[in-house]
């Protein structure tokens, strides 16, 4: 197998990294648009403490299981279409669109159900809020699901796309998992990361923007979310525009960096262990080198965090105020 195939492997890896970055950014922004994440506890609480609001409210489950479902649905549809020999350019977007149909149905029923549950606290159901947010939810979600299914497609056909030929009916370096399973895996991961990192910018900053900057949000503030925008009354559309400037891209970078490190260390281990470019037989050395590179990356991350925390403590100093 020529060395060009190895170059193609690394090129596809970078395509996957780029798609991962886009996917997780849009996943986080979608969760901000629909308020489907941990900060939604405050949206739910707001009505109960007398703060009637115009926020969208669709927290029916955690982001990870929700995106696992949307991505797996999309992956299954795309997989079936691919088996029917429909071109991936058509099959993947059709799969993502079907996933988003489910998403919008869940968003509608969740928002109406949650708001109806707040009736005793006199929280109205604003129909313009409902109608106005469904399309942004669907479009942001579509981008996330489309990128995840594309990643799953590339990974399940990585060897074929890089120019490897089948050996005994199996193409080397094609991932052993079926496309829907890969979509499920990355759906869970993208949801977990979007929930872990992206929520912070929405929950700690944008949701309580009329509170002092530079402190954790105290328990007495809980439920008293910022209900007024720069102009008029705040909805999720004001929030997503704000989070798109920092929280969303940071979240995208998190997933992109994880995918980059994971694929890069495996491929470099394979190269140094002389498993590539032939990609046949077994190589424990390749596995070992991949593990060692991963451990070095992890140790570097630990030192990076120690240095960052030290810098932040020195830069911001101890808490001042009451």
């Amino acid at each position, binding site marked *: 197998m020529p060395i060009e195939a190895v170059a193609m492997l690394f090129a596809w890896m970078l395509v996957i990294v780029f798609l991962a970055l886009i996917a997780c950014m849009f996943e986080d922004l979608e969760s901000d648009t629909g308020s489907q994440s941990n900060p939604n506890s405050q949206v739910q609480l707001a009505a109960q403490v007398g703060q009637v609001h115009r926020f969208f409210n669709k927290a029916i489950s955690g982001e990870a299981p929700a995106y696992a479902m949307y991505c797996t649905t999309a992956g299954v549809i795309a997989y079936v279409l691919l088996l029917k020999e429909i071109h991936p350019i058509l099959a993947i977007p059709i799969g993502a669109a079907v996933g988003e149909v489910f998403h919008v149905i869940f968003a509608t029923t969740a928002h109406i159900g949650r708001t109806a549950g707040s009736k005793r606290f006199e929280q109205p159901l604003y129909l313009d809020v409902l109608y106005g947010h469904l399309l942004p939810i669907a479009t942001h979600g579509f981008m996330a699901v489309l990128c995840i299914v594309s990643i799953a497609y590339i990974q399940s056909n990585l060897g074929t796309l890089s120019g490897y030929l089948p050996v005994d009916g199996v193409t080397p370096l094609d991932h052993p998992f079926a496309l829907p399973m890969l979509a499920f895996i990355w759906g869970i991961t993208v949801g977990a990361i979007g*929930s872990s990192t992206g929520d912070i910018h929405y929950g700690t900053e944008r949701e309580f923007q009329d509170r002092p900057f530079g402190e954790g949000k105290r328990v007495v503030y809980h439920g008293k979310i910022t209900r007024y925008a720069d102009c008029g009354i705040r909805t999720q559309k004001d929030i997503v525009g704000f989070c798109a400037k920092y929280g969303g891209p940071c979240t995208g970078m998190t997933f992109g960096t994880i995918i980059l490190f994971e694929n890069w260390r*495996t491929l470099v281990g394979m190269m140094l262990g002389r498993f590539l470019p032939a990609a046949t037989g077994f190589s424990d050395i390749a596995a070992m080198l991949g593990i060692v590179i991963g451990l070095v990356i992890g140790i570097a991350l*630990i030192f990076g965090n120690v240095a960052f925390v030290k810098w932040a403590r020195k830069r911001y100093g101890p808490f001042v105020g009451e």
Partner: protein
Amino acid sequence: MDPITILLVVVVCVIVGGVFASLGVHLLPVGGAPAAMGTATGIATGTIMLMLGAAVTGLFTASTVATFSKNILLVALSGAVGSWIMMGVTMLMANIIYAFGAGVVPVSGRVEVDPITKEPQTPYKTPQCDGHGVPNVSYISGMVGAFIGGFGGAFMYFALLNYAKFEPTMAAIAAIGIFVANAILAAYNIGGTIEGFHDPKFKRLPKALFSCFFVSLFCGVFVGMVAFIGGLI
């Protein structure tokens, strides 16, 4: 290997994987919803989602490595390292968003001095908050937890793939299923938020390990039976 030996090996591997999953979950710095408002220390998501996200990232790499290595330790370690990288990057980026997006310093709410770096915590904490961000002790605890959890998940996957002779996708689904069962038990034991090994809730660990042992034993026997019936091969 004769069928009884295979059954025993599968059961032992599933028990090891399940108990490691439970131990890993207890070491993660999980802040849940309060962490999303900077009201509690840890990662701003649920226990199971965080552990599962890390474990399946590791499982992806472990399954790739399982195509060119038949060494169970190497495959499991590949999964462990995958989880540890996922958790490391996630916690670091969370701290970056806390610091630059909300102006918050990572600080523990459960200890006055960081047990590892010896940095004082209380002066940096916002009143009426149970800490915020991911301080160094929680970061290192989370990395260790992800490593152990990822190891357990990949260990189970390898056993189901090569000893129980499941098809790769089915082995992954079964491994994830058993992993989730153990992670949920651990999450019940934690009951919301935990900062890591220095958190007083960590002392509840033996109860979870005991429960997870029996759940994994049941799962292992069931998986072994399925392998002998042959319906999933």
